[in-house]
């Protein structure tokens, strides 16, 4: 008893401090680092440019022409959908600045400067100029964390726009991803565009993703295509966060879209 008390007298403070530090760290881990990212956002506020980059990008004339054509097609599409009773709500997105990137090399994430207070929720779809970027996985009052589609654990159900061939897109870190087909001999060729498929559980159908760069038909167990992503994921500055209307977007843990 005496030895225990003497030991505690000598080491008590140290043990207390160690336990305190460990529990603070554990608490941070359980709260998914909300405090850190709020602080980070506050510190990087002076460096965020306030001008809306989208309006600058829209100056481009050919882009404006394409937008006009897109609008035309969208309205046509809308009318056809009404005829078919096909329901899909289009929601206005939130423009969010990218304030940071993954704090670890094994995960492909970005940190956005908009959070719960601005209406961002877990499961929201994030897209940049060019197409799909990822999905919101964590939200704090003023920041949110996005798992990019280039992350190796991110799997997205995709389809070839030309032939409607289905497959699963897996990230490869960098600006590349691999699409694995369900069929043995898919009708696909380099240059085909791909988009999210209607059976994806995490993303609404029809969001553009990228282009087929090359196809390996001999890959086992299923043919694979290398996809060049259309949004510049390596140097994103602004993204658009939109509400996810897919019904099964709730379970975040099961990332596979069969």
């Amino acid at each position: 008893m005496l030895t225990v008390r003497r030991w505690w007298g000598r080491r008590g403070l140290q043990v207390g401090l160690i336990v305190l530090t460990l529990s603070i760290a554990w608490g941070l881990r359980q709260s998914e680092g909300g405090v850190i990212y709020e602080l980070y956002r506050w510190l990087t506020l002076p460096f965020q440019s306030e001008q809306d980059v989208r309006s600058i990008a829209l100056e481009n004339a050919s882009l404006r022409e394409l937008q006009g054509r897109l609008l035309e097609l969208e309205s046509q599409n809308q009318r056809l959908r009404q005829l078919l009773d096909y329901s899909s709500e289009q929601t206005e997105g939130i423009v969010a600045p990218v304030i940071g990137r993954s704090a670890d090399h094994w995960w492909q994430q970005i940190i956005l400067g908009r959070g719960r207070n601005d209406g961002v929720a877990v499961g929201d779809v994030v897209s940049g100029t060019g197409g799909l970027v990822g999905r919101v996985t964590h939200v704090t009052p003023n920041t949110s964390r996005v798992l990019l589609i280039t992350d190796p654990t991110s799997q997205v159900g995709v389809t070839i726009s030309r032939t409607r061939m289905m497959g699963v897109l897996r990230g490869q870190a960098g600006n590349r991803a691999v699409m694995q087909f369900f069929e043995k001999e898919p009708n696909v060729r380099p240059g085909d565009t791909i988009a999210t498929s209607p059976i994806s559980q995490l993303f609404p159908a029809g969001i553009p993703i990228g282009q087929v760069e090359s196809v390996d038909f001999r890959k086992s167990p299923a043919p694979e295509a290398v996809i060049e992503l259309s949004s510049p994921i390596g140097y994103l500055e602004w993204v658009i966060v939109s509400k996810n209307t897919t019904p099964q977007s709730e379970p975040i843990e099961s990332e596979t879209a069969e």
Partner: protein
Amino acid sequence: MATFFDPFLWSPSLRRSLNWGITVFSVLACLLTMPTRIPGMELLGVGPNWMLIWVVVWSVNRTAWEGAIAGIVLGFIQDAMTAPNPSHAVSLAVVGILTARLRKQRYIQEDFISVALIVFGMAVISETVVALQFTLGSLTNPTESYPTLGEIWLFHQQIALCSAILSSLWAPVVYYPLQRWWNLMETVEQAQLS
């Protein structure tokens, strides 16, 4: 006013709290640098591993226990900032223990060149530990969406090399001021005790 700028005149409680304050502040600075990608700090999309640099700098002059605890604490915090599974605490604790156990007197001196060398080695070791954790994860839960084995070890090569080069180049930025501070605190403590 003069008493404030002379560490030898500080009271032990002031000294201790300042020491803790500076240590916690340095961890916070490292934490907040992790998500930034300042030009020149990036190689193939990989930046320096600031948590690892801090754990190495902390453990160089401490016991294996202290190294392990620092590794676990910082690992938990890094889990909070990225994804908790697999935990970063394992790799950082391994780094803390190994750094503390290194026979530095025999092989290398305590200047910042050798700290850079230690950081290089430890970066490779810690990324290997993470890759092993991923491998274990993908072997034990084949249903979950882990990367395939081939992908894990391909990423490991890229990440380990880039992170090791960058971390060792940036290590003196953390090492030099912190080591100066801790040495000063130790000298003051010795002087006050005697």
